[in-house]
């Protein structure tokens, strides 16, 4: 009975979404305030019913209702309870329900936190999101209903959740990633509302920026969590594999990064308007592309859901309709969005434009490498794959270039900056960065390498130029504290996120240069050396868990004569599905990770294993955390709230008065 109720709730939500996608938009077009006013209550209804469906599915998982096909396929009586609750997103149907639920959550957030935006704008944003939800819900009800029953004879037990998913990473990575992904739908809806009304000014950018920042921050942390999970769960010792399903979030993230920078220009200078809208469309298209690739099963990857052409076609239709419609609207309306100000060849606008170009080119090259095998297969019938060397060859130089520009951007001035000013500001920063780049790796490793030198130099370039910029800003204030207090939160957010870039550059580059690994066969008592550490294999013993049994090995790690710690890699066999799984043992540290994966037993209780020493790998995720925090701090800037207050005050006098241009600070 409960699953049917869930199904029914989804149908009701669909009906409400149809209303949401029509009346408020029609009302906004004709100036009918009553129709526009429907948007918020309808959103609340949509949220309640999709939420109800979600809760019912979770509850059915909790009580082991194996008469539901989806639950039978993804759960088991022996499955630990926390995984029963989260197995909801362990497969295609449920994860799409989560996706739709997330969108409903974002819609509710827009409805609640938009009290002081003009009602016609809110109606348009929510109407566009409503139309999108119609597509998603139709897709779910037509091709992937999570509430389908097994009739007439329900099985007594389920096939179990995929063993690779039974992990903490599975609990946190998909919801975060989806939330970030779906957040860009909100920014997309903001852009569509601007196109529909033909009004895209500094006030619009101020409304949009906190949402874009938050969506970007959540996506950042979602991708980082996925990378961290893949690192410790899949056990190939890397943190990024250029997997076809890892790439679309990255593409979305790159467009999103370009977008939050372009929005800054739109807010401060009133230009790049159509470009900003274009980026919002592209970021959204990236998120839909991710769904399409995962769910159509067109590309081989660790993430591939079951292949089902019908689903692929449906998602492709949603993608074509929404992105195609958006582009059409863009083509018709973009000429209205003319910027007013010019800017010099050397100016902050120009540097941000270069930043945008680099980001878009990198996104495009990742896109090309991801989809090329698919296109190639369609044209020639030959199967090919594009290896990581392609992505590295393109991506690494582009990011290096981006970092160079990043150092100059914040220090430069709007409109026009003289080359001499920049030279005097940055000459010492550059020289010092280069010196650090040569000296630091040399001092630690006693050998010169081009990679580490460039890496440290680039990271120092970011850090030192940020310090220099902060010093400039604080220099003319009476006291340090007064200066610090006068700086807006968005400035702190920017600095923190840029520091995150520096941290990530160090992590990503130095890990790939300094990591060492070795596959060996060790008998009890045997030792091996790697990267200055000694690993002694003690032995292996059988273990049993709630839904698996396996073997656990013990290794002692020595540095010199000192025992650092014991490591316990495992091999498990999950009983219900019969799938084996390897559990890595990791000694995580700020400077390096020690990492052991267990292979198999080979005669006389000797085991094959691969041992990795990975310096700086934690810095990759540390950098992502900084970026995420930076984005959230910037979104909390009081000028966004002040903009709302002003807007509220204005609304009482005149309903749609034109707003004054943005103040020209930092």
């Amino acid at each position, binding site marked *: 009975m409960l699953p049917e109720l869930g199904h029914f709730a989804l149908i009701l939500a669909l009906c409400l979404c149809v209303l949401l996608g029509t009346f408020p938009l029609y009302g906004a077009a004709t100036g009918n305030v009553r129709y526009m006013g429907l948007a918020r209550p309808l959103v609340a209804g949509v949220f309640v019913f999709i939420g109800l469906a979600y809760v019912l599915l979770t509850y059915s998982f909790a009580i082991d209702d194996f008469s539901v096909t989806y639950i039978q*396929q993804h759960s088991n009586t022996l499955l630990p309870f926390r995984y029963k609750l989260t197995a909801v*997103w*362990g*497969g*295609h149907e449920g*994860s799409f329900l989560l996706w739709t639920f997330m969108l409903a959550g974002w819609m509710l957030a827009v409805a609640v936190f938009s009290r002081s935006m003009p009602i016609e704008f809110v109606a348009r944003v929510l109407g566009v999101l409503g139309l999108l939800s119609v597509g998603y819900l139709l897709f779910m009800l037509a091709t992937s209903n999570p509430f389908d029953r097994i009739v007439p004879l329900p099985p007594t037990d389920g*096939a179990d959740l*995929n063993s*690779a*998913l039974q992990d903490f990473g*599975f609990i946190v990575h*998909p919801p975060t990633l989806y939330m970030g992904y779906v957040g860009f739908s909100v920014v997309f809806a903001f852009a569509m509302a601007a196109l529909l009304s033909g009004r895209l000014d500094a006030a619009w950018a101020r409304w949009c920026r906190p949402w874009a920042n938050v969506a970007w921050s959540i996506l950042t942390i979602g991708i980082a969590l996925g990378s961290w999970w893949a690192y410790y769960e899949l056990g190939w010792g890397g943190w990024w594999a250029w997997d076809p399903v890892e790439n679309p979030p990255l593409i979305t993230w790159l467009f999103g990064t370009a977008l939050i920078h372009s929005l800054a220009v739109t807010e401060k200078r009133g230009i790049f308007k159509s470009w900003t809208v274009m980026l919002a469309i592209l970021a959204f298209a990236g998120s839909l592309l991710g769904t399409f690739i995962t769910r159509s*099963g*067109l*590309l*081989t*990857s*660790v*993430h*591939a*859901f*079951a*292949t089902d052409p019908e689903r692929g076609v449906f998602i492709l239709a949603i993608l074509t309709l929404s992105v195609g419609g958006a582009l059409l609207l863009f083509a018709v309306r973009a000429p209205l969005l003319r910027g007013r100000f*010019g800017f010099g*060849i050397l100016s902050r606008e120009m540097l941000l434009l270069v930043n945008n*170009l680099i980001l878009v*080119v990198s996104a495009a*090259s990742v896109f*090309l*490498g991801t989809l*090329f095998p698919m296109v190639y297969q369609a044209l020639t019938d*030959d*199967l*090919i*794959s*594009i*290896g990581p*060397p*392609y992505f590295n*060859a*393109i991506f690494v130089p582009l990011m290096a270039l981006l970092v160079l520009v990043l150092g100059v951007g914040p220090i430069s001035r709007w409109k026009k900056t003289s080359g001499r000013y920049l030279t005097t500001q940055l000459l010492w920063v550059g020289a010092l960065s280069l010196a650090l780049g040569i000296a630091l790796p040399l001092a630690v490793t006693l050998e010169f390498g081009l990679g580490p030198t460039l890496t440290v130099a680039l990271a120092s370039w970011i850090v030192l130029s940020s310090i220099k910029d902060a010093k400039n800003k604080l220099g003319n204030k009476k006291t340090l504290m007064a200066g610090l207090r006068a700086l807006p939160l968005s400035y702190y957010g920017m600095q923190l996120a840029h520091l995150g870039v520096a941290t990530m550059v160090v992590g990503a580059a130095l890990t790939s240069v300094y990591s060492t690994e070795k*596959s*060996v*066969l060790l008998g009890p008592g045997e030792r091996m050396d790697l990267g200055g550490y000694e690993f002694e294999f003690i032995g292996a013993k059988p273990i049993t868990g709630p839904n698996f049994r396996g073997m656990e090995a013990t290794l002692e790690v020595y540095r010199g004569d000192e025992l650092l710690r014991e490591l316990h890699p495992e091999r498990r066999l999950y009983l219900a*599905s*019969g*799938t*084996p*799984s*390897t559990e890595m043992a990791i000694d995580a540290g700020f400077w390096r990770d020690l990492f052991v*994966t267990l*292979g*198999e037993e*080979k*005669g006389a209780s000797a085991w*094959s*294993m*691969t041992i990795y020493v990975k310096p700086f790998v934690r810095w990759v995720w540390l950098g992502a955390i900084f970026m995420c925090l930076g984005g959230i701090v910037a979104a909390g800037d009081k000028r966004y709230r002040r903009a709302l207050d002003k807007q509220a005050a204005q609304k009482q006098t005149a309903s749609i008065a034109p707003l004054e241009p943005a103040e020209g600070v930092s």
Partner: protein
Amino acid sequence: MKPHRRKKLGSILFIALGLSVAAGLTLYALKQNINMFFTPSQVAGGEVPKGQHFRIGGMVKDGSIAREDDSLSVNFVTTDFISEVPIHYVGILPDLFREGQGIVAEGVVDTAGVFQASKVLAKHDENYMSPEVKAALDAAGTSTEGSLPSEGYKPQY
């Protein structure tokens, strides 16, 4: 031409130049890094140019896995149920590697006709076949043979 027009034209040309250089380099890098995929029948039929690095996909033949006890070397045979190709690999095989399982391997064929794999992938669970393996079996017309249930496969997140 007015100066600001010229400036605008200059920057547009500059951007176009930059983009075409980027596109050229991208396509070059793409061409360098394409891994072709071949089925065991194609390999046996001599369709693969000598010394080429490529991917091969098929099922692990029952009873063909031979591990050495004192090293990480392993030999096995991959098949599309028409032709067979021996594979040699040194290292730890993935969790889901076993007899009767679809795998994809990356490497080169040596002079003795043995595929020297640098990487072996068997990411999917026992009920799910990677599209590449499926294509290999489809090409050989043998996708209904072997232990491959036609439905009820489990997705992997």
